[in-house]
């Protein structure tokens, strides 16, 4: 068991060190399998791969307004520093509506919606961003936009002709409420009570700029 934990930590540090963690991981796993760790390698693979997004999600961002850096991801946590609009940060981690950031003014938690992540990218290039990182899509290389790009313009929509066959196909995939309940249960989704939000003008007590 001790050896297993050591292995685990080794993977962890190796992944942190190397951007090519995928190949390193595969290599180490192969070694482990050789060493007779067959039963455990599956579990290791799954747990390490699921850790990967969190580790890889390091990205730059910019404060889009004055925002407090707090010690913890709660609105009543202690304020460590205040970012000004335009301050740049490094995003380390995401948790709910909060981002853990590193900045010249200090490290801590900032509201996700106060930070604009990365820069502007073209869709035809690599639309990465933190989401791309999280899904492991970064590093797949630039996708060159050439043929095969199929738009859906206003003109296309205006000229559209009814397609009965496609519509029937679309309708054949309908999910019943019972199926949906089962699907939710499988995903461990439970219903929360939550009222609709008032429009911001009311929400901020009429303090609209």
């Amino acid at each position, binding site marked *: 068991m001790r050896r297993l934990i050591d292995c685990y930590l080794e993977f962890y540090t190796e992944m942190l060190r190397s951007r090519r963690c995928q190949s390193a991981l595969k290599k180490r796993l192969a070694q482990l399998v050789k060493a007779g760790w067959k039963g455990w390698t599956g579990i290791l693979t799954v747990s390490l791969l*699921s850790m990967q*997004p969190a580790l890889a999600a390091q990205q730059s961002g910019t404060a*889009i307004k004055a925002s407090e850096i707090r010690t913890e991801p*709660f609105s009543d946590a202690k304020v460590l520093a205040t970012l000004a609009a335009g301050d740049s940060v490094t995003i380390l981690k995401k948790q*709910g*509506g909060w981002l853990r950031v590193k900045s010249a003014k200090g490290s801590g938690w900032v509201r996700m*919606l*106060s930070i*604009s*992540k990365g820069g*502007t*990218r*073209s*869709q035809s290039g690599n*639309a990465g*961003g933190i*989401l791309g990182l*999280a*899904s492991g899509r970064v590093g797949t290389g630039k996708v060159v936009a050439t043929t*095969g*790009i*199929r*738009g*859906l313009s*206003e003109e*296309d*929509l*205006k*000229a*559209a*002709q*009814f*397609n*009965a066959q496609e*519509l029937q*196909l*679309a*309708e054949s*995939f*309908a*999910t*019943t*409420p019972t199926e*949906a*309940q089962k699907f*939710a249960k*499988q*995903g*461990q*989704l439970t219903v*929360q*009570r*939550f*009222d*609709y*939000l008032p*429009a*911001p003008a009311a*929400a*901020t007590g009429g303090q609209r700029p």
Partner: protein
Amino acid sequence: MKITIRWFLMLAAFGCSSVQGADFGQFEQELKDAQQKIKGNPGAAAILANVMGISQEEEIVIGRQIAGNLLGAAPLVKDNRLQKYVNNVGRWVAIQSERPDLPWHFGVIESDDINAFAAPGGYIFITRGLYKQLTNEASLAGVLAHEIAHVVRQHHLKILQQSKLVDLGGKLVAQEVGGNDQAQKVIGSGAEIVARSLDKNAEFEADRMAVVLATRAGYDPYSFAEVLQQIGHVAPDDGSVALLFKTHPLPADRLDKLDKAMSNRFDNVRGRTVEQRFYRINKK
């Protein structure tokens, strides 16, 4: 005023023509009876939706025509597991709305544009281009929830009504096969109705509702905002967002409004992102 309309509709629905000459007590009793009937009768909800002179049945006929046209412009992505998955997520979210019993349909269509469309009656489509921007089930739920909100609030039907396209003259009757000529007259040319801009406030409202509907369904409330951030990273002059940005406020504006509306209200919500079973679309 709203209540008056409701009662009027109830009376009309159940043929309570005996009001004339009846004493007030009896009138009240009849109203109570009508209310009782409506509670136990799902069909009555359709009649209640009839505020704009369009029944739920007609709304579905109109929506179905728009959906068929939209699919004529961009067919479904031929991936049955993907389509079923999107219907599972969509239906689960739609159940959390005020119109759980509509015959909801969801689909992913072949287009590299980043966009999503809602047609009356519960027909919702997102493009392959938008789907590819998503990273987990919660973000898909958020996008579908925004469209569900348009259907629930009948935003597109209201446009049809404002432009006086809805002048049915006769009743729209559902047809099993093929397009519906009468419905086509109502919606104008092809599926142009889905390319129309709604009022900005309708979009902001749909954003706020999206976050709440996804939250109710047990998803992470912030995943929808992440999609908006992600779309905001696409260069505005990129063709893939041309129609989306033409018909919607820009992501930065939407995020600003959403931030103010959400404030710290979701701090105690522990929703799920559901990354493990998120269906990854095939590369093309």
